[in-house]
């Protein structure tokens, strides 16, 4: 197996008195696509946010490429965040900049890349996600699905070693979900290390090398997607999957 890229040991995180993560251990290998599943409020977003230092952790260590990245100051953290791309659920493009400037801002200001080459790369990436004609548009002129594709491109342009996706399609209209998931599938095919939180079960099954199931602040179960979706080991995972089946069946009935 490939080398370990991200290693999380005994991670604890609480907000005030609420313990959200109660000792999470997780290794992610280079090029691996890990999908995090779990009921709402179990701490999936919190885990992703701890990894790139948007939340300070209470205990444990996070290591990226053998270097400890937890417990750093915000200024120090910015160095590691360049290696970890993140896309959020809410559309979070910079509204005062057009699409190409959104994409090239951080490479130019943070990595000191020159405008011409940054813009050339941005155009290549935009072409790959089918948005080349939008380079001069402003975020307000884009649909939700288009904004999320730009957000992915913006993160990729930093040449991250791994990407974190937190329910990037959850706020989208159903007809726009596919275009964003397709981009992620393509990235997974190229060997980018990815840690994905999603509620799209079919997508999880298709993209994941490994499924992590979290509940109550712990990793309860992990396995390859086939095993997880066909023979979940724990009752909690079974229950979780049954709820989804119920939702899916209910949707089918509604549409009849």
């Amino acid at each position: 197996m490939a080398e370990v890229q991200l290693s999380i040991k005994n991670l604890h995180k609480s907000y005030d008195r609420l313990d959200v993560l109660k000792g999470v251990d997780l290794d992610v290998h280079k090029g691996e696509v890990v999908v995090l599943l779990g009921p709402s409020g179990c701490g999936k977003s919190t885990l992703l946010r701890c990894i790139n230092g948007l939340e300070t952790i209470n205990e444990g260590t996070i290591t990226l490429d053998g270097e400890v990245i937890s417990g750093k100051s915000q200024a120090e953290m910015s160095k590691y965040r360049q290696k970890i791309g993140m896309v959020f659920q809410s559309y979070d493009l910079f509204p005062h900049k057009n699409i190409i400037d959104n994409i090239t801002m951080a490479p130019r200001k943070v990595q000191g890349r020159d405008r011409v080459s940054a813009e050339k790369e941005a155009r290549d990436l935009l072409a790959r996600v089918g948005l080349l004609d939008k380079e001069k548009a402003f975020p307000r002129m884009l649909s939700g699905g288009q904004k999320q594709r730009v957000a992915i491109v913006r993160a990729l342009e930093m040449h991250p070693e791994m990407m974190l996706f937190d329910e990037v399609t959850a706020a989208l209209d159903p007809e726009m979900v596919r275009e964003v998931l397709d981009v992620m599938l393509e990235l997974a095919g190229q060997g980018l290390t990815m840690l994905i939180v999603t509620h799209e079960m079919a997508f999880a099954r298709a993209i994941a090398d490994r499924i992590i199931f979290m509940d109550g602040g712990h990793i309860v179960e992990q396995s390859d997607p086939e095993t997880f979706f066909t023979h979940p080991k724990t009752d909690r995972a079974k229950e979780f999957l049954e709820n989804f089946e119920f939702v899916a069946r209910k949707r089918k009935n509604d549409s009849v």
Partner: protein
Amino acid sequence: MLVLAIDAAREPAISILFRGNNFVRLLGGLWVTIRISMISAVLSIPLGILFGIFMMRKNPAAKAVSRVYLDFIRIMPQLVLLFIVYFGTTRAFGINLSGELSAIIVFVLWGTAEMGDLVRGALSSIPKHQYESAAALGMTPMEINIYVIIPQTLRRLIPLAINLITRMIKTTSLIVLIGVVEVLKTGQQIIDANRFAFPTAALPIYGVIFFLYFFTCWPISLLAKYLEKRWKN
């Protein structure tokens, strides 16, 4: 003498403007108005920015202090503030402030409070996600402020700040009452001095003053509207 006065009375009242240096005097008065407004604005804007940032602090004492200051300035009519500073300081401390200086003090106190509230509003209208997505791209807190937060804050703020300046210009008309000879007072002086020669001078003089105010404030608010529209997103 009598003949002369009758002669003058037959002239249309508007011609009073072109008598002697009357129009230039009005412009001089307008300059006093503009000077006081501009000095106050130039001082209020940076102080207001600092005050706005101060208001964003979570510290309860900082919150209480800024709340009291803002409410006090807002509740007090500006005229009362002008009287307190102009007459009050003389009584209380024996300091004799000129009318113009008192006016600037009051307008800076008022402008700082209003500007601070605008800054606070603009800053808190920037969603948390803007900070986080910039941070996730590896920007340092300093870079986030320079490239993401401040540009967005300014776009919201500048049109509002410009409107505040026009409000200041209009409110300077109150400072007649603490003896500052600005455009309104100059107009009154001209009317008084020509009471017999031009008994109906009030209308043209105040009419001209109206246009002077209008043509001072109108371009400014057009600019504010233009910027607001351009930066809307």
